[in-house]
């Protein structure tokens, strides 16, 4: 069978295939352009950007763990002004959907970034209310359905772009969080962000990460992520973007069958900077082999 359809649609935006990259693991695409053809990605999702530059946490910021890693970057970013001047023009050279990941410490800061992006040539916003590495921001909104709904409403009012709310796995009920942001007007949800973890250096008798705790990502979290994507997809009617440990086409297809309309590849890029290309090709091969006309035919079949 030839000519399988890999395209999907999320909040009225058509993606040429269901594969994007997870925010924070791919910069704005520049650093991976030597390895991956950004034109062949369904979408590029950029590193979280705030209203002003953030300097992030002290080092050590990253450490490997069994089949995964912990990171506590602390959302270092150059601020929206530089992002608009430098990163958006870079991304515009590519024929792919552009998703900007937005962070803030207060509702007002989220709104400032979102307003600055109105009129800019980007397609969607992903609102990060789930970063576990910054005390003041993100996660405070991501662990309380009311606070999450408040950010969603404010962002939706301020933005002319479709809004994806990025959910934290560090909650009691992912379904309740997904429902809360759907009711508040979210156009889509993405999940999961990292799971809070820790590593201790027994020789130094100290925490490895300067921040003590960090976010666990990579294949180690995939079963948890898959279960949460399944639960969220069954709780809401808006599209779900699934992520957490995806490192191969078969991983991606698992998430799609569990209910994800699209998938994001994060930590796997560190292990193989060409992996996104292999995943796009692998999904096409799977569909061809199984005589499935469109990837849409397997979304949420379980």
């Amino acid at each position, binding site marked *: 069978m030839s000519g399988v359809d890999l395209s999907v649609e999320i909040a009225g935006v058509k993606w040429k295939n269901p594969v994007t990259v997870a925010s924070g693991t791919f910069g704005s695409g520049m650093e991976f352009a030597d390895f991956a053809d950004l034109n062949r990605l369904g979408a590029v999702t950029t590193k979280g950007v705030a209203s002003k530059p953030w300097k992030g946490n002290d080092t050590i910021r990253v450490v490997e763990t069994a089949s995964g890693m912990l990171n506590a970057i602390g959302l*270092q970013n150059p601020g929206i002004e530089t992002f608009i001047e430098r990163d958006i023009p870079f991304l515009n050279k590519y024929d792919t959907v552009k998703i900007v990941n937005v962070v803030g410490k207060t509702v007002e800061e989220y709104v400032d970034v979102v307003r600055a992006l109105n009129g800019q040539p980007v397609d969607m916003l992903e609102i990060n209310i789930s970063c576990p590495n910054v005390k003041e921001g993100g996660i405070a909104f991501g662990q309380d359905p009311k606070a999450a709904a408040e950010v969603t409403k404010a962002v939706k009012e301020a933005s002319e772009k479709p809004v994806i709310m990025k959910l934290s796995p560090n909650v009691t009920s992912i379904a309740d969080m997904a429902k809360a942001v759907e009711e508040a007007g979210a156009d889509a949800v993405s999940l999961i962000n990292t799971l809070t973890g820790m590593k201790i250096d027994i020789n130094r008798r100290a925490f490895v990460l300067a921040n003590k705790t960090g976010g666990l990502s990579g294949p180690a979290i995939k079963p948890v992520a898959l279960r949460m994507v399944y639960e969220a997809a069954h709780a809401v009617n808006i599209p779900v973007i699934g992520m957490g440990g995806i490192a191969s086409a078969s991983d991606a297809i698992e998430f799609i069958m569990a209910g994800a309309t699209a998938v994001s590849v994060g930590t796997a890029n560190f292990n193989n900077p060409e992996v996104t290309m292999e995943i796009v090709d692998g999904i096409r091969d799977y569909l061809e082999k199984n005589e499935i006309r469109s990837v849409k035919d397997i979304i949420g079949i379980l």
Partner: protein
Amino acid sequence: MIYREKITVTSNERLTDDIFDLKFNTKNIAKDAKPGQFINVYSADASRLLPRPISICEVTGDEIRLVYRTVGEGTREFSRLQKGDERFVTGPVGNGYDTDFLNGNFKSAALFGGGAGIPPMVELSKRLDIKTDVFLGYRDVLFLNNDFPENVTVHIATEDGSTGTKGNVMDALRESGVTPDVICACGPMPMLKAIKAYSEEDVIKTYFSLEERMACGVGACLGCVCKTKETDEHSKVDNARICVDGPVFDAEEVIL
């Protein structure tokens, strides 16, 4: 440009108890490689996700030589590599040393290497055509001390005094009476701090190769930063990525 290549090991020899010498041919990496740059070596074990950054020790035609210490599971895996084994690598990564600038602007150089910081000094010394003194610091057992070009003077310091000056590279420098125009150094933080104190007092231009834990190894994750005195051009905050903005920094620009 950083290339991803599947390389085939041509040799992997043991130099000391815990120091190994890995050689492989590359299609493009060696052509572009500069001293001070590094190679990301990927594990064959999928549970070890992150590449191990290892400095380029020598470039000979298409061949890259890496000399590394076994410290954990990743480097222990590499130590078992045999001729014919394949691995993925990415490289060359980082700015490296600007040897044209060094040759053009200084009359004499002192290169300092401490322990696992010694390897990059080999290729650097090969590309310098000014008077060069190399100061190598070891705990006890020597390696790479015979791999420097003939026109380079090698000074050795060992902690136990078994060879050369007893003490560290600064003791060896004092003993030698060498007064360089420019310093290039790679090694443990206490060594870099001692060199900084010395070069600040005598106002000697100094470059450091820095190390930090890395994740992506290609400039995307912001895991590997060091603090900078001024706002960095890329990050817009007071830190720079060691992997691609470094690993070589002007000592005046970074805070150790």
